[in-house]
């Protein structure tokens, strides 16, 4: 009975592992094969490294190296927005945790509510707002909304409210350090783990965001990689037989599309590898005492 239960448990876990892992495995192997081989050979077989180079040449040649531009745009948008997030969210969390000023609770509650609301719910309202300000089509219409990241404020707030001893900061103040010096020399160095966490979450959220840049950018040379992928998808005959002629010209088939997807997720995959622990801490940090 016990052995049967243990066996059943393993079977269930293994079945789900297949469901979660096989698509990733397929994606990694797909660029090693030519489009025809993807259909004829076994789905999880390895082709050759030469095919990867070939697929990259096709991808890179697409629309005058636009794929590189998309990756560059994503890096630009995600990194500059995340820099602004760090500069605004860490002090804000500190101020909310240790400050006493009128409106503190209102700011905190608004931050929480916007943080929990799905980001997509705000995309059309932000679009409508930027549209009325004639900012549509500008790079700033992506970077500035990305720079508002209430989750980062919440993480910093929870950290300063629970993990940093108030006495330590008070001691610095008694010693004559002003508010700014206390923050700069005591509170900020203490927040290193939280800075890393906010960087991870903000970067991943920006890198993966599709809807906002899709709505506010008009020119494909400004697209981040997520929107670029959809552009690529609509120009391949693999899913769009109507694109047949165009597909032949642009040489974008399934292996190229798979390679494009794979490269697009590398930065986030690296962050994910590093941050599984951080995720738990970030999600549980505020509410559950370890």
């Amino acid at each position, binding site marked *: 009975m016990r052995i049967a239960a243990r066996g059943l*448990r393993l079977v*269930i876990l293994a079945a*789900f592992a297949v469901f*979660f892992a096989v*698509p*990733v495995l*397929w*994606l990694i192997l*797909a660029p090693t094969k030519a489009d025809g081989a*993807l259909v004829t050979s076994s*789905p*999880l077989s390895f082709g050759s490294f030469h095919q990867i180079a070939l697929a990259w040449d096709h991808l890179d040649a697409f629309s005058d190296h636009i794929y590189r531009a998309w990756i560059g745009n994503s890096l630009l948008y995600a990194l500059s927005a995340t820099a602004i997030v760090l*500069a605004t969210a860490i*002090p*804000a969390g500190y*101020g909310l945790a*240790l*400050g*006493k*000023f009128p409106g503190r*609770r209102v*700011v*905190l*509650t608004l931050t929480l*509510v*916007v943080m*929990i609301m*799905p980001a*997509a*719910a705000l995309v*059309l*309202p*932000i679009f*409508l707002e930027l549209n009325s300000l004639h900012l549509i089509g500008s790079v700033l219409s992506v970077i*500035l909304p990305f720079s*508002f990241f209430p989750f980062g404020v919440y993480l910093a707030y929870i950290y300063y409210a*629970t993990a940093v001893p108030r006495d330590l900061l008070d001691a610095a103040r008694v010693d004559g350090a002003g*508010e*700014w010096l206390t923050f700069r020399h005591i509170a900020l160095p203490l927040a290193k783990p939280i800075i890393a966490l906010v960087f991870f979450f903000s970067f*991943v959220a920006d890198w993966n965001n*599709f*809807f906002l840049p899709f709505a506010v950018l008009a020119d494909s040379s400004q697209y981040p990689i997520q929107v670029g992928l*959809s552009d690529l*998808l*609509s120009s391949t005959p693999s*899913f*769009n*037989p*109507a694109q047949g002629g165009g597909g032949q010209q642009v040489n974008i088939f399934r292996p190229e599309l*798979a390679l494009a997807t794979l490269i697009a997720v590398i930065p986030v*995959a690296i962050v994910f590898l590093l941050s599984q622990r951080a*995720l*738990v801490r970030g*999600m*549980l940090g*505020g*509410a*559950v*005492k*370890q």
Partner: protein
Amino acid sequence: MSLPALTSRQAEAAHPRGLRAARMRARRVPRGLPFIVPYLPFLIAFGIAPMLYALDLAFTNANGGVTGFRNFTRTFTDYRFVPAFNHILLYTGVWLGTLIVFVVGLALLLHGRANRTSSAFRFLFYMPGALAGAASVLVWLFMLDPAVSPGSFLLRHVLGAQLFVQSIAPGNLPFVFAMIAFWTGAGGWIVVMYGALNTIPHELEEAARIDGAGPFTIALRLKLPLIRKWVAYMAILSFATGTQLFIEPQLVNEASLGMVPDTWSSNQLAYQLAFRYGDFNGAAAIAADLLVIGLLAAVLIVTRTGLFGRED
């Protein structure tokens, strides 16, 4: 603390340093306020103002005249409105059901015996989360194409799909999108639930075991109730996120030769109203519908689950 009997001059004479310091403090800005000043413009410009502006648009017409609920009734009677809401509700229902059952089930299974296999499994489940957004949809477009999919026998024999277009037949779509969302998101939630399970004191489990409870009873009667609020949090958050569906149907629309309409979900309909018809007031009305769902869910989580402390 206060010194009512003394005039300020006398007080200063008695405690010169103390009072001056107190006065200095009173003149200074409230403690902590300068630190949130750089953040406030972002909170206002991209958190509060868009909501207010969308509401303003939703209750006015193109000329700025107040129209009451006319934009709401007008969009509601649009022939695409009800189907779009039906789509996202069915999708959200399927997704929520699978998410709750399998995330909680798998987390409990993994927590049954904490060891190295458990962490390897958690990692495998979690990894697809790196492929969010357009990437996950692309991967599943491949997975649903019987010509190249490693699961082609399932597509052919279970789903009865010989061709890609049959896999993404309209009736399948809510289930397909639910599967994609589950594939990318479930692992992260499993990690979170597992973390929540780890906060249950060992003594509690030990006591139950001594009382003769088997692993199954412990999982359902002891552990599950203790992570209840996390399950509620996941459910409410996922419900709100589910109703916002946009990217999945958008990409499938591009890959389906228009067989799947570009107004499949409510957010897509709002987007099309704004972009194709320039009907910003109608788009704002639908955005406001979705905003209310998101806001309600957020307020519910903040005020009811007690997961997010606002006191220090």
